[in-house]
């Protein structure tokens, strides 16, 4: 009796062992292992990116309000938005803000990268200092700027007045439409410049020195070296950085939210801040979702060109 039981047990053990081996072998197969490893990432992106995105699409086609399921209204939200003056202002703001910020960051970033690419002492220190605005929490850095733009105690105005450039008390930066936009662009440039400069610096370092030497023997000057070697060689990096920055500048939230709250008179609202105001604070979920979806074409544009660039690189 005991013997058969023991035998049964070893038999069971063998079976289990074999089963375990089979499972083990199954997971050792490259395809199975590959998919298992990717599964957690896939699940997260499915539930927390793809699903909310589809939900945004759906919401934008309804008149949903907080706490009340909406009914289907087709494209009415989008049509209403395009006729709404606040939204049209936001659309204009988004393009002015993104265009000016990206242009400024590109030009200044290139200048800074060229300066840093010289044979400098304490290069590490300079590079580290220049990168700081990009590292610290953006919302907290913007608080500092908010204080610097204060209507009464602005340090910028204090300096301008004492240099005799403006009459006291100086401009009200965040209270005037045009100046508020300039302020927001300035802060975005402050924040994003390090990314441009350091990326371009990496691009500059990667340019082979022989090209410059060859150009020098051909009698090329500084300017023609820059125009015929530096710029063309830097083009791939430049393209990636500009594309990348376009989507993240256009979708910026905290600079406007902390500095101006979209004001004065909606003159600095961007898609993200208006989405919050309409969708969450006022509760018009459908309209809010529709506003945020205006970022989607920009995203498609950026993704398309980024993928095209990436493909060309790997080929």
């Amino acid at each position, binding site marked *: 009796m005991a013997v058969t039981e023991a035998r049964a047990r070893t038999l069971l053990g063998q079976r289990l062992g074999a089963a375990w081996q089979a499972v083990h072998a199954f997971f050792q197969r490259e395809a199975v292992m590959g*998919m298992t490893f990717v599964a957690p990432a896939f699940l997260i992106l499915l539930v927390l990116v793809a699903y909310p995105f589809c939900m945004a699409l759906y919401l934008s086609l309804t008149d949903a309000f907080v706490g009340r399921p909406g009914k289907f209204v087709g494209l009415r939200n989008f049509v209403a938005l395009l006729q709404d003056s606040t939204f049209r202002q936001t659309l204009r703001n988004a393009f002015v803000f993104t265009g000016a910020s990206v242009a400024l960051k590109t030009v200044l970033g290139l200048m800074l990268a060229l300066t840093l690419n010289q044979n400098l002492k304490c290069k590490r220190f300079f590079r580290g200092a220049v990168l700081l605005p990009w590292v610290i929490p953006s919302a907290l850095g913007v608080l*500092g700027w908010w204080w610097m733009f*204060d209507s*009464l105690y602005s340090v910028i105005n204090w300096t301008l007045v004492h240099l005799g450039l403006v009459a006291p008390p100086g401009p009200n930066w965040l209270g005037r439409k045009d100046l508020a936009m300039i302020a927001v662009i300035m802060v975005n440039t402050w924040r994003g*410049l390090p990314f441009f400069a350091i990326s371009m610096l990496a691009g500059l370092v990667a340019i082979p020195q022989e090209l410059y030497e060859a150009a020098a023997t051909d009698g090329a000057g500084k300017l023609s070296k820059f125009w015929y070697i530096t710029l063309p060689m830097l083009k791939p990096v430049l393209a990636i950085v500009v594309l990348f920055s376009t989507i993240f500048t256009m979708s910026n939230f905290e600079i406007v939210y902390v500095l101006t709250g979209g004001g004065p008179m909606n003159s600095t609202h961007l898609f993200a801040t208006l989405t919050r105001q309409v969708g969450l604070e006022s509760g018009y979920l459908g309209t809010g979702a529709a506003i*945020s979806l205006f970022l989607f074409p920009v995203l498609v544009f950026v993704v398309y060109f980024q993928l095209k660039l990436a493909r060309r690189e790997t080929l």
Partner: protein
Amino acid sequence: MSGIERLGQRQARRRLWRRRGRELAKYLPLVPFLIFALFPLYFMLVTSLKSDAELYDLKAVPFLIQQGIDFGHYLYLLSTPFLTWMKNSLLVSSLSTAISVCIGILAAYSLARLRFPAANSFGTGIFITYLVPTSLLFLPLSRVIHGFGLSDSKWALVLTYPTFLVPFSTWLLMGYFRTVPKEVEECAMVDGCTRLQALIRIVLPMAIPGIVCAVLFSFTLSWNEFIYALTFTSSSEELTATVGITTELIRGDIYYWGSLMAGAMLGSIPIVLVYVFFMDYYVSGLTAGAVK
């Protein structure tokens, strides 16, 4: 001293000055950039250390502290839930970083090394989600969070931060894993390692710089995150540092500029400390995305 000698000396001196001038000219263009980058931070620090009397004195020079350093604004923070916000930030950032980097390691290894159906399209999918801005998703995500029963909870942040951290770390680590020679791993497997053992014992140690980089960036990104934290949490004891400082330290029309700046300083310090020690990783991580 003969005239010729004197002439030679003068020439040498002139040459020296010219060289010094040229040397200086290399650094001069850096000055405006350094002022632009660092002045706001310097001014925040100065503001946070001034007494209120000097801070709101219109005749005082704003750049300097002339009436003595005052730590009052920092002490005031102790009477607010500031420490709770910092603790929340630390908890949320550490947890979401740990989760995301682990998931990222698995996904990146799989995409860089293993052949399986749909690997390429999944790689592209990861890249696309890397570019999806958080401001496109926060509105519907707030409903998903509500559905999970996590409204007004810091755990909502632990759940949602991986949505941008996983694509980022996967993308970053894929690059690092590709630099580990396949042969090393194959050797280990010929010697009797399973693939999993080869990954843990051979590939991961070789990719440590990449993993450090992914951890640093993920931690920084989650510490600095603003829009999700602002949307998904509202009660004071659930807030993270960035949101708590920007929303709760301002009351009515009176601005607590001193304590606001003190909060901003302290809220940035953990990141700045990490940054100072690991600067090179930040630079390499930053450029890994743009320059291959």
